């Protein structure tokens, strides 16, 4: 049986993954989301060119920021697992939780971006360097998550996914470089530069800042809970078998007792 690092606080608390700290964090997150809605939909002005559509930015930019943050955390946690002296599965679970959330947020960025593109550019998708890189980023991490589900022991999963997590970091600059070169050679000038023509006013910038803060808090809250759920899953896989064996043994013992 593989040993996993015990998380006694989680074990004792059968009701869920919440602790007083995460509850407070959750409340702060909700408050900051309300704040974001107020600034994003209310206080911040409409754009001169894009009019009301510019408000999508307050979701679009924070989601991709969270995705990048999440993937950096995945890479760092993978490195810490692989090269750390104590091969703690905690790092592996952090990497996995962060990658799951990052992938979800990239998907949100792509969907929200496509809607924004339809409103401002008239098309859902453009083969622009940044869009293409983001799409490949999404597929790469979907692959990473698939590798995590290959099966085997927790240690096998941890080592395999840590290696793939680090390879993704090698891959992404190459993808970005090639895609940028591809588009710069084949397209005269990118009319669809997503940040070029937005005249950023102070209140807009502040609303964007609120968005980034709110989504970062949301990310931290999600990672904490997802990591704990993963710890519980691992524990259930380990101890679930032990308990089933013990139950079978007890059953056999009572049967033997009856026969005698």
């Amino acid at each position: 049986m593989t040993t996993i690092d015990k998380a006694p606080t989680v074990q004792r608390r059968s009701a869920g993954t919440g602790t007083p700290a995460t509850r407070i964090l959750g409340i702060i997150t909700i408050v900051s989301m309300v704040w974001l809605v107020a600034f994003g939909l209310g206080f911040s002005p409409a754009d001169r060119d894009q009019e009301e559509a510019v408000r999508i930015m307050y979701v679009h930019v924070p989601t991709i920021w969270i995705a990048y943050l999440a993937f950096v955390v995945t890479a760092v946690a993978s490195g810490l697992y692989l090269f750390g002296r104590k091969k703690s599965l905690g790092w592996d679970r952090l990497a996995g939780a962060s990658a799951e959330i990052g992938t979800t947020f990239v998907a949100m960025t792509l969907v929200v971006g496509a809607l924004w593109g339809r409103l401002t550019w008239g098309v859902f998708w453009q083969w622009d360097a940044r869009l293409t890189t983001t799409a490949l980023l999404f597929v790469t991490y979907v692959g990473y998550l698939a590798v995590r589900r290959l099966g085997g022991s927790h240690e096998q999963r941890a080592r395999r996914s840590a290696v793939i997590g680090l390879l993704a970091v090698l891959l992404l600059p190459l993808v970005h470089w090639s895609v940028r070169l591809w588009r710069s050679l084949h397209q005269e000038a990118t009319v669809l530069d997503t940040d070029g023509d937005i005249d950023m006013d102070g209140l807009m910038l502040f609303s964007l800042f609120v968005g980034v803060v709110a989504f970062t808090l949301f990310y931290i809250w999600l990672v904490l809970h997802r990591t704990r759920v993963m710890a519980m899953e691992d524990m259930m896989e380990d101890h679930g078998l032990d308990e089933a064996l013990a139950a079978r043994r007890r059953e056999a013992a009572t049967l033997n007792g009856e026969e005698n």
Partner: protein
Amino acid sequence: MSSWRIARIVAAKDLRIEVHSRVLTNQVLPFAGVTMVIFAFALDADSVLERVAPGLIWLATMFSLLVLVQRSFAIETDDGALDAMRVAGLDPRAIYLGKAMALAVELLVLEVVLLFTAIILYRQTIPLNGVVLLVTTLLTATCGLAAVGTLYGGLASGFKGRETLLPLLTLPAVAPVLIGATRAVESALGTAGAVVSDGWSWVGLLAVFAVTFGVGGSLAFGPLIDE
């Protein structure tokens, strides 16, 4: 035994198996040929085919790469040969290098055949001043493809569902090769007025890719197959 020698033995073993089993000539090459024909069905117009021929050559190569990688590791896992090699104490980096070299040779054969198919079916011509660029592109792109293919092939070997996992991991990873090699071959063949000198920056990209994944792959292969 030095790692280099082990790598050569592993590569020779793989190639010998391919020569005897004829899977490459009887299955993979015909598959690639069929792919080239159905591309023509999908794209219909001759002018379009002439314009996109370099990309189609590489697309057919990528699809065949998946088949070749699966084949390359199926011959290992069927008899537990990969485990046997590890138990025998062979350096995983040498195994990786050997398998990648064998895969590269098979890919080169495939690419040359596809190139000639494109000359016949898609009316391509190879100008004399593009030959050096063309050969360099084929070699560097092949090294990159073999490095990535062997790495993910090793990871996916020995698991249920590996057939579906391999394309998901490999295709996004080889996207830079598809872009770079297509543009370089366009320059070499002079497709749509591309000039030869433009192609060399793409060869640079391909070389960086091959070196990165060659080094990364040889380091990662051990932990990946060491179950």
